[in-house]
């Protein structure tokens, strides 16, 4: 009889810390091999299309940046909250409310100068995300209600509001489709690379992530936030206003997720549609986890997943495999990352029953 069990390591394995990212990718590909074959594609060909393909053409390469932009926002949003020990699973809903706010703002800023119009959209979008994050945060702080449940449950609520608006008051009067009117042209995010959809949203995301990196690592507030996340009791004892830190982290996280919605409305879609997010908030959890909750990690993970999204699209076209394959890969990737993080702290002990008798 062979038994396997986890035993805690004396110290987290350092080599695994560095290897988590690459190891996760390799293991995920091995695990998803069966699905690729079942979809009727050659695995090597499929993975080449998935990973390498997007990087071989200028257009696809820039599309990776486009796909990564909302993930940078949602990934950073989730990472900030998680670092404070606030388990915000509601980036999806916060993104949608940010998108609603941006879509509304975009239609009323028509007469303004472009800079002001964009600033109003950004401000209202961030505010929308923060407002959606406020309720669960207050319920957690005042009543002790688990935010995992409340933030998660508000996601479908936000989606229902979107579909309600699009099928009711906001239905496009011209096309009669469930999509909002287009936002004013002066509210469009300017493109930063010619002949591509790469827009101001990417710059905004990187600037905010750099700011978050600075605040988390280099300021008293960041240290207080990390202390709160690592040990709320010790943080409270040391005089840190744990409730205020959690509230601040929750609202910042919501605002950041709301900006993902703004970047989609103002940079890509120019209107609100009910499929505008399609799980970008949830993918933010993958990004944050894969990036080890650090800002540089979030950037790398968002780029990688952006690559995967673009690759999945072309895989669908070139190889005829369903694009849902990308979702399977994404899901498997998250599970593998979490497993590897557990392995970092534990080792697997393998024992054979016969040997165990007699000697210790």
């Amino acid at each position, binding site marked *: 009889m062979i038994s396997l069990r986890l*035993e805690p390591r*004396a*110290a987290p394995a350092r080599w695994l810390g560095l290897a988590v990212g690459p190891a996760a990718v390799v293991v995920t590909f091995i695990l998803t091999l069966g699905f690729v074959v079942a979809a009727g594609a050659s695995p090597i060909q499929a993975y080449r299309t998935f990973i390498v393909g997007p990087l071989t053409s200028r257009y696809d390469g820039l599309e990776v940046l486009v796909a990564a932009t909302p993930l940078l926002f949602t990934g950073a949003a989730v990472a900030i909250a998680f670092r404070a020990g606030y388990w915000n699973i509601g980036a999806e809903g916060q993104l949608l409310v940010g998108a609603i706010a941006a879509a509304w703002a975009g239609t009323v800023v028509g007469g303004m100068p472009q800079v002001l119009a964009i600033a109003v959209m950004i401000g209202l979008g961030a505010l929308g995300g923060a407002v959606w994050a406020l309720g669960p945060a207050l319920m957690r702080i005042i009543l002790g209600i688990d935010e995992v449940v409340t933030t998660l449950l508000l996601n479908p609520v936000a989606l229902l509001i979107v579909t309600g608006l699009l099928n009711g008051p906001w239905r496009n009067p011209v096309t009669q489709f469930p999509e909002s009117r287009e936002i004013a042209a002066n509210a469009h995010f300017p493109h930063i690379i010619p002949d591509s959809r790469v827009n101001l949203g990417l710059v905004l995301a990187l600037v905010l992530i750099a700011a978050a990196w600075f605040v988390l690592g*280099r*300021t*008293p507030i*960041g*240290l*207080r936030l*990390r*202390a709160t996340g*690592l*040990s709320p*009791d*010790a*943080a*409270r*004892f*040391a*005089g*840190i*206003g744990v409730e205020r830190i959690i509230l601040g982290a929750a609202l910042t996280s919501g605002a950041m997720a709301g900006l993902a919605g703004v970047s989609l409305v103002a940079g890509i879609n120019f209107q609100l549609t009910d499929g505008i997010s399609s799980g970008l908030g949830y993918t933010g959890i993958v990004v944050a986890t894969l990036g080890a909750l650090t800002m540089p990690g979030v950037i790398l993970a968002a780029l990688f997943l952006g690559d995967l999204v673009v690759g999945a699209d072309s895989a669908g076209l070139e190889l005829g495999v369903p694009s849902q394959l990308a979702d399977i890969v994404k899901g498997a990737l998250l599970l593998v990352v979490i497993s590897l993080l557990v392995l970092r702290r534990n080792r697997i*002990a393998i*024992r054979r029953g016969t040997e*165990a*008798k*007699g*000697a*210790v």
Partner: protein
Amino acid sequence: MNDTPAVELRDVTKRYGSLVANDRIELTVARGEVHALLGENGAGKTTLMRILYGLTRPDAGAVLIDGRPVAIHSPKDAIAAGIGMVTQHFALVKPMTVAENVILGATDGMRVRLDVAAAKVADAAERFGIRADPLARVGGLSVGEQQRVEILKALYRKCRVLILDEPTAVLVPQEVASLFAALRRLCAEGIAVIFISHKLHEVREISTRVTVLRRGAVVGTRTTSDVDDRELALLMVGRPTLGVQRPSAASAGAPILRVEALSATSRQGLPALRHVSFEVGRGEILGVAGVSGNGQTELVDLLCGMRSPSAGRIELDGTDITGSKPAEVVAAGIGRIPEDRHAAVVGELSVAENLALEHLSEFGSGPQLDRRALVRHAEELIQRFTIKARPDDAAVTLSGGNLQKLVLARVLSRDPKAIVVSQPTRGLDVGATEYVRGELLAQRARGAGVLLVSEDLDELLALADRLIVLYEGQIVGALAAADADPARLGLLMAGLFHLEPVA
């Protein structure tokens, strides 16, 4: 009567990287003996017992129970082999009752008869003289009470080898006496007891033989009656120890910390403190004695700003600080050294960050945290308080003694007006204990008022100028240190104050 030892450890070795925690340990424990395991922190006692209980795997060596080699891979194997252990860190399910915890994992059949279990627990509690309400929820119990549940749990499992890791730290003398009486009864039934302790007088009182560990190796096994305290202490530390002595003739100054009719409720909403009033003078150490769970936790929490009183008033140097938050309490000039060091320190943060955690705003240049100032500050305190660590080390990697020095450094370097300190030397080795006590006396000499909450009577008697005794949330005795002795304190702590003319 067969003389096969109950437990035999042969050549047990355990390494952590370059550190040898257990170096070819040989230990035999006979049936019916209390075998004391003596040694400083880090000597390897706990590692050895974790190996015996299946919590740690040795790199080499063998364990024999009743002369037969056994493979112990988990506590389950250990329990099956008849080994029970009461550790310093409790394995209790807090939302469950005492009875449920005791029977957990030791039930048979399909039905759980909780009423029967409760009766059995009450019976065992009575039989072994360990007071515990079977229906109380464990989460609401103090550290001391929880430890009693752990002891009951091991006894309930009918172990033939009982490992006790510093079991007496939270008991009053009377309870220690009845625990010892219970141990003797167990021994008479042929059960082997392994008793880990720092306290020589306990080792002397209860043990048949004593094995001393130092730096992971056995430095000697003696029959207790053949060895004197001095020899044991020398074996243990490798150098003669000198107890810290309180300079006599304290001239307590004006009151610095005043507590007036303070009341508070426990987390379960029961009255935990009732109209407690006292003063601590400048340059005075006021000791608070009492069995844990009699209001000390609440008193310390109130003074640390971690909880608000239901009535009463706290004054520091004439300023009302009742109901202040932790940051305000620190700013007012109270230094806080809590019972649980891990609750004061964020383990994953660095030593430097932890040292600055209460005063982060002082380490900013603009909005930025001044890393270099943080490290400089840490280096200074590391040197001054002889902490064995580097500024960048994660606090979690520090030993108990060094962690306590870290907390001391954070607090004492601010020259607080008053210091609230709880169980400052619990779990520390002799060297670290002396150091901590010396620092507290230095603060007294500096003119700080010190409120010292401790369950270690020797500590209270060695340090305090005056003592108050808490029992069920009330002060049941106040006496000068000169008038105090363990017997008298023990009576008060056990609630037998009617036998005692209250001072």
